[in-house]
């Protein structure tokens, strides 16, 4: 290569931009932030520099409103190899293996252009994983939409699901789980949170560090275009009437290109050619170059004329801020440049040396023989202002539909009213409940996702947690996403604890032990003190529960400004929990398995609604976990939306192992039917077993309540209460109501 660096340019060659108030507004920068920029540079910035600062200091990239709070989250633990601050968190799973995982939001783009917005959300998180050297083996997603009676919400859902399928299926990662909720507040602001997990040998981790002065900085992958410019800035503001005009800010995804990039990057890593590597995600070339320099304490010089470009006449500003997808920046050893080129050429990819690592700590950018930016890396990557924004508890929180009980949160209000009318027809109510938007089957969605590629999926979508075997070992991973928005909206602190507890419970019910978590914190406008209060409460609740369960947060993402026309969404934290199933034989399904098995309900002595007792939660989880290990459990299902009645129905539906199976259950007469069937109390688990006596003995020894409810068998779900069949319904009929729920809403 004839690439050559001429040495730093004198400051006077840099032409300052005419910065007016309008220019600052367009860049989402405040006057005081601007002054800080001037102080760092010791001069007025160029237009390119202003653009660079605006994306790096955007809320999305800098976490300027959340940083002070995020420090309270536990991030360390015996299994944690890498906590927050890198592209993804990493945990040790034994056998010399590690997994890298993270969740990230792509909410704003998905509202403007649902298909591409969601697709590139998946693409972005996959790059975060393989940039560390891990091969992605599982993806999940957590989605929130407005109610489907509005045409626009249908269009958004179909677009988002189509985009996720398009990207994940082509790339070849199984989409093994996720969750979807509907509520009004997401009508103008859908949420798309994408999770990915990859696996690798734990001594082969790669970091985004530009080490080794003089080493080449190499650009690989897709060409740079004008798409996605200011994507990060867009994600750091709310939407008004001009939302549609922001469509060009959304990136376009090419999963085929990403698949080639994956294989080429892993091959180059295997061959020991790479010193440091980072994907170009939010804030593109800017973010990858300055962060890699900052982490290594080095400088990076870039010559933009060498950057492969898709369009002609792109300015330095545009090249630096483009968020074109499927691009990576890597640093190689000086003498390995040729070999790197060979690998990427083999995969038919662009590979160009665009700069060098320097010793002076500056990000220096040249374009058409002029220095257009010269900024200290450290100040850019880590020097963003940190705001301690005002917190104020809101005057009113979302109240429960019943004063002290939570009932079918996701159902239509009319259905809830029916519940409290006289002479309820319980068969009909149950059928309505299983078909309502927040309870009905998501099969229509996940059948569109390839959830089996790579042939590790023991069980995928539709279970409490997904179970993925780890080839070459006897282990499996259990993965789940949980974000109970209604509960968080009612009480952010308790709701956040419940999210963590439910995630752990899902892992435990699948036969695993929770190890570590990633979080995606979706909130409204942080400049609203009520939103910041919610945020702070959620962080505290999450910190408390994660510390209690020993599941550190190894990374994640904050998405603020989820507001449209001034209306904030519910505080919506989503927890992505990773658990380890030590032996594949512990893998436990949520569905009933055998006729004649006993059905038991385990719960704490004191019932809680809308809050959580951590000690109780631990007791229930310990019981389930030890019972599974001792082979006492045939199936285990966590009680969630819709309470006991819905959980029983879910255990009966058909699955790939067997057809629909019935159950006959008696609700003890000292319980209150309505509350007991549909109440959403915390910390309850439904098990099926062949050894009631032993389970009962253990539950009582642990001070837990134990109800022997009945037996699996037949083809009907029968619920008895005070000697009356209050529910008596054919499972196939119930199952079709449940599985038809979503397609009906979409038709």
């Amino acid at each position, binding site marked *: 290569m004839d690439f050559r660096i001429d040495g730093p340019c004198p400051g006077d060659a840099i032409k300052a931009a005419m910065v007016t108030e309008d220019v600052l507004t367009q860049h989402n920068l405040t006057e005081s932030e601007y002054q800080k920029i001037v102080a760092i540079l010791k001069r007025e910035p160029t237009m390119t520099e202003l653009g660079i600062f605006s994306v790096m200091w955007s809320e999305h990239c800098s976490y300027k409103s959340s940083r002070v709070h995020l420090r309270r989250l536990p991030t360390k633990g015996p299994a944690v190899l890498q906590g927050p601050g890198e592209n993804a968190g990493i945990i040790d799973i034994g056998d010399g293996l590690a997994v890298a995982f993270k969740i990230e939001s792509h909410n704003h783009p998905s509202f403007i252009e649902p298909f591409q917005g969601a697709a590139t959300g998946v693409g972005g998180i996959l790059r975060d994983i393989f940039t560390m050297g891990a091969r992605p083996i599982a993806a999940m997603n957590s989605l929130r939409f407005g109610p489907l009676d509005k045409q626009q919400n249908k269009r958004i859902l179909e677009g988002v699901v189509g985009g996720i*399928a398009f990207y994940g299926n082509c790339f070849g990662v199984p989409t093994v789980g996720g969750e979807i909720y509907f509520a009004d507040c997401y009508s103008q602001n859908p949420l798309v949170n994408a999770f990915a997990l990859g696996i690798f040998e734990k001594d082969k981790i790669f970091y985004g560090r530009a080490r080794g002065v003089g080493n080449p900085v190499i650009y690989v992958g897709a060409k740079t275009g004008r798409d996605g410019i200011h994507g990060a800035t867009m994600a750091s503001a709310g939407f008004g009437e001009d939302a549609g005009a922001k469509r060009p800010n959304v990136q376009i995804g*090419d999963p*085929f290109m990403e698949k080639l990039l994956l294989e080429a990057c892993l091959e180059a890593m295997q061959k020991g050619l790479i010193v440091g590597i980072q994907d170009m995600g939010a804030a593109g070339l800017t973010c990858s170059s300055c962060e890699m320099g900052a982490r290594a304490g080095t400088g990076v010089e870039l010559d933009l004329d060498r950057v492969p470009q898709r369009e002609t006449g792109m300015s330095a500003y545009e090249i630096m801020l483009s968020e074109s997808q499927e691009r990576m920046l890597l640093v190689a050893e000086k003498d390995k440049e040729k070999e790197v080129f060979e690998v990427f050429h083999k995969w038919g990819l662009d590979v160009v040396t665009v700069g060098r690592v320097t010793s002076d700590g500056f990000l220096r950018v040249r374009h058409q023989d002029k220095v257009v930016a010269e900024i200290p890396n450290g100040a850019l990557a880590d020097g963003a202002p940190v705001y301690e924004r005002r917190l104020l508890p809101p005057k009113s929180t979302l109240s429960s539909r019943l004063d002290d009980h939570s009932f079918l949160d996701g159902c239509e209000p009319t259905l809830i009213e029916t519940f409290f009318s006289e002479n309820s027809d319980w068969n009909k109510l149950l059928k309505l409940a299983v078909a309502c938007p927040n309870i009905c089957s998501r099969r229509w969605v996940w059948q569109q996702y*390839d959830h*089996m590629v790579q*042939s590790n*999926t023991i069980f995928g979508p539709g279970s409490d947690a997904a179970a993925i075997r780890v080839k070459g070992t006897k282990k499996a991973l259990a993965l789940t996403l949980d974000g109970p928005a209604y509960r968080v909206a009612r009480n952010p602190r308790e709701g956040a604890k419940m999210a963590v507890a439910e995630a752990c419970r899902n892992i435990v019910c699948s036969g695993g032990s929770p190890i570590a978590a990633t979080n995606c914190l979706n909130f409204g406008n942080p400049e609203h003190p009520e939103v910041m209060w919610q945020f702070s409460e959620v962080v505290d609740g999450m910190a408390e529960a994660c510390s209690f369960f020993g599941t550190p947060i190894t990374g994640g993402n904050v998405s603020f400004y989820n507001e449209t026309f001034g209306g904030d969404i519910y505080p919506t934290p989503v927890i992505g929990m990773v658990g380890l199933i030590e032996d594949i034989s512990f893998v436990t399904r949520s569905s009933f398995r055998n006729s004649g098995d006993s059905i038991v309900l385990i719960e704490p002595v004191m019932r809680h609604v809308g809050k959580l007792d951590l000690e109780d939660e631990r007791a229930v989880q310990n019981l389930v976990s030890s019972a599974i290990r001792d082979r006492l459990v045939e199936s285990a299902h966590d009680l969630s939306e819709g309470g006991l009645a819905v959980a029983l129905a879910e255990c009966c539906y058909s699955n*790939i*192992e067997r057809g629909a199976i019935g159950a006959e259950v008696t609700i003890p007469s000292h319980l209150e039917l309505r509350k007991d069937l549909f109440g959403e109390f915390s910390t309850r688990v439904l098990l099926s077993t062949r050894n009631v006596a032993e389970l009962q003995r253990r539950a009582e020894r642990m001070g837990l309540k134990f109800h022997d409810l009945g037996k699996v068998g037949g083809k009907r779900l029968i619920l008895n209460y005070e000697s009356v069949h209050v529910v008596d319904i054919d499972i196939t009929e119930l199952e079709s109501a449940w599985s038809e729920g979503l397609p009906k809403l979409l038709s």
Partner: protein
Amino acid sequence: MKFGVVIFPGSNCEQDCYYTIQSVLQQPVEYIWHQDTTVKGFDAVVLPGGFAYGDYLRTGALAKFSPVMRAVADFAKKGGIVIGICNGFQILTEAGMLPGALLRNVGLKYLCKFEYLRTETVDTPFTNLMTKGQLLHIPIGHGEGNFFADSETLKRIEDQDQVVFRYADAHGHVTPEANPNGSLNNIAGIVNDQRNVLGMMPHPDRAYESILGSADGRWIFESMVHALVTR
């Protein structure tokens, strides 16, 4: 005996096929790069699933021009055993090595789910260990698996016993309800008239172990091994 698994840019099931052959069948297997111009030394060739060339233009439409495809065609002409799974089936039809075409699914959605396949003929190197009518529980994962052929071709395929698998219900009945994608005559897999090239949309490479939901895919791979051993 050596299996070869072709990697096109965008293939994504090559590792599943490789793993099935190596770890489950315990047979020798190697990858074949799409730029290779020969498949010499291989006894069976697998075209795996995925999205070769991103499925851009049309599924399989670009992959058929990969240099390796000429070698695979020669190999097949000389009687070599070739199996194309999912995207591999699409490539084989585009390359003219199998009749018919695969259109977008009725319903226009990608579908990933388990299906029952009824084995229609055991007179192939892919089904020789099975019994006619045997049901296999094997998943599909495709957006373009709707088998189509003009009526004359379809008649020929049927008359010459080239239909290997049909989508069926759990009782083995071939019904419209059991047809996930609109394929003519519920066709899930066919062989060429020489009977040594199989194309099938379902993935036996995802059903080789009971923890994955089914081990029925092994019947197909083990039949191939049997065919090679007894040849």
